[in-house]
């Protein structure tokens, strides 16, 4: 336990020090990793703790991003109002989508979430008056909370780090709470949970909404980082990358999505500098993970360490 605390402290310090030593490119890369971490961690609530695999999580990320960009650029609302609107709108969307998708579980749930997300994607492409279609929305500026400018890569990185920290802490508390335990109960033994008097549907629905909310937070970070939004953000590829992050890192663990999302972003954005066929590398790495550590990197490494200590 002690060494674990030490590791956490060291990694935390290095994360905070990073923007003061690394170049802009690496700071921006780290920011993208953090945004992907929030996204994967939110999806992990569903996939890992509720046992509900979703292929439509990008809908919430993109929806929040579009509301934020749309209200600030088109309507000229202040960033705080836009952020609140975006999060409220995304939570509401998650409530509606959850109510529809949770009529099924397993494969049915997967397909419904996919279909719903494709609807949002299609709207973003087609509703040109609102979304500017395939040209995307440009012209967003980063907010200045408390008079602090987030324009520099380092400042935005630190803000993202703070929000990522809050997100992961809240999710950790949630998972450890009585609610979190009942959520895992509905994953493992839904019928027994029902017999014990828990409202399985309600537990799952709230989990869906919470996951949607945090994906919305990731969406806000995303749109302020990119300062541009295009319908492709809502595509299945974004959902699939989030899901890959969760599965590769280890679903149902707190550290899993962190490791997995970092791996996906680094392979996609950094390894591609050196390897022309980076898609193949990405595929090969995931095949390797599935073969060697079928339950993900974090549980896999934990098992290895336990074996060594024995």
């Amino acid at each position, binding site marked *: 336990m002690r060494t674990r605390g030490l590791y956490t402290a060291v990694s935390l310090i290095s994360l905070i020090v990073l923007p003061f030593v690394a*170049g*802009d*490119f690496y700071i*921006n*890369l780290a920011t*993208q990793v953090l945004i992907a971490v929030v996204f994967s961690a939110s999806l992990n609530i569903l996939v890992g703790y509720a046992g509900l695999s979703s292929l439509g999580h990008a809908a919430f990320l993109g929806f929040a991003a579009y509301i934020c960009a749309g209200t600030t650029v088109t309507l000229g609302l202040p960033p705080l109002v836009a952020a609140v609107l975006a999060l409220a709108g995304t939570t509401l969307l998650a409530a509606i989508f959850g109510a529809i998708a949770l009529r099924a579980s397993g494969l049915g749930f997967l397909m419904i979430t996919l279909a719903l997300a494709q609807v949002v994607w299609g709207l973003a*492409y087609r509703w*040109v008056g609102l979304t500017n*279609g*395939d*040209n*995307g929305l*440009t*012209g967003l500026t980063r907010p200045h909370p408390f008079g602090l400018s987030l324009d520099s890569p380092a400042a935005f990185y630190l803000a993202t780090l703070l929000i990522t920290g809050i997100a992961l802490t809240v999710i950790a508390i949630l998972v450890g709470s009585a609610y979190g335990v009942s959520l895992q109960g509905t994953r493992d033994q839904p019928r027994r949970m029902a017999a014990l008097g828990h409202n399985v549907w309600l537990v799952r629905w709230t989990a869906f909404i919470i996951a949607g909310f945090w994906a919305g937070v990731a969406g806000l970070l995303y749109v302020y980082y*990119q*300062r*541009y939004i*295009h319908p*492709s*953000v809502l595509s299945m*590829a974004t959902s699939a990358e989030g899901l890959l992050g969760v599965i590769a890192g280890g679903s149902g663990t707190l550290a899993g999505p962190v490791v997995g999302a970092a791996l996906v972003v680094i392979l*996609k*954005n950094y390894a*591609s*500098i*050196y*390897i*022309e*066929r*980076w*898609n*193949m*590398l990405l595929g090969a790495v995931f095949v390797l993970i599935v073969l060697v550590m079928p339950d993900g990197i974090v549980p896999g490494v934990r098992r290895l360490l336990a074996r060594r200590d024995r």
Partner: protein
Amino acid sequence: MKMSRRTMLHGTAGLATAAALSAPARAAEPIRLGLLTVKTGPLASGGLDMERALTMFLKERDNTLSGRKVELIVADTAGAPATARTKTQELVEKNDVHCLMGPLAAFEALAIDDYIREKQIPVLGVAAAEDVTQRKPNPWLVRGTSSSAQCAHPMGEYCAKDLKYKTMITIGDDIAYGHEMTAGFQRVFEENGGKIVQKLFAPLTAPDYGTYISQLKEADAIFIGFAGSNGFRFLRQFNEYGLQAKLIPVGGMTALDEAVLRNMGDEALGIVTTCWYSAELDNPANQKFAPAFRAENKYDPGFYAAATYVEGAVLEAALKSIDGKIEDKPAFMAALRATKTDTVRGPVRFDEFGNVIGNVYIRKVTRKEGRLVNSVIKTYPDVSQFWTYDQKAFLANPVYSRDWPPAKNLSN
């Protein structure tokens, strides 16, 4: 898998350059040129042509422009806006490039637009998005290719006046490029007395055009506004349905590109398309470039290959006028925009928005020495992105889209 191919170091021997890179040797610093292109995904064939032609351009000049070595760094945007942005940041922040060339797709250009303004990086654009040189002009951009509708405008006039078509259908990819090109075509064609009776847009990755082809109404001709290999795929199916006898196909600047023409047969013969380039142009620059490109790659250079080759010529001319001092960014940018030079597409110069003014060619597919080529049948000299319209009035209109200009003559 080729490791490190991305950092293609031209000129000095690989080892020496690698050493020079690791140590900040600033003495004879090379010009670092970043190319944003697409090497994976459905747009990759054009993207690879962009890289090949630019590499060839630099090699022909011994990787030296205005007495300075040029180091080319190629980045793969995968045709995705977010990746385009990351890769631009990589080229600017990690490789510290002096100027950028590309990207290929309009949405990529729009995704990096504000970043370019913020970092003030001179860009030699390839993507055709209208507004980056119109209603939201980017001061750091010159575009030596064309805007989406720049070649479609003359085609509209040609179809109405020379070919005397009365009614036409337009079909294009359901992306900004397709919308803008067919809108420009429609505007000029209808103003010259023609009628667009049907407008169709198919998804960029449509696996099959059968549903669109079976909807086609009666008309004199159909204007094909597809990009990449879609024009070729559409035409093949169009023929399989036996429609060529009833409806004459004509095309936009990427519909029958040389890169796909080599995969076609006699069914392509006689099809008229419009573009700012043809491998058949007989200007001196192209008479060197096209055979050389063909010798190296076994096919004719098309739109994408010519794009980076033209941009290379613009870069060379601009650098020459400022004696290679690319570090003075405002002076370099001014030099780029003041460039008047002869390129493989003919003479080019730029308007106040940094968009090219150059010839547009009407071409017809013919057979020459056994292969299909786009023979030039008419030249519209010095075409601007505003065509014959008053610039102010043009800019007061909304940007071309699915719905603008409105199609008033659609038949039911």
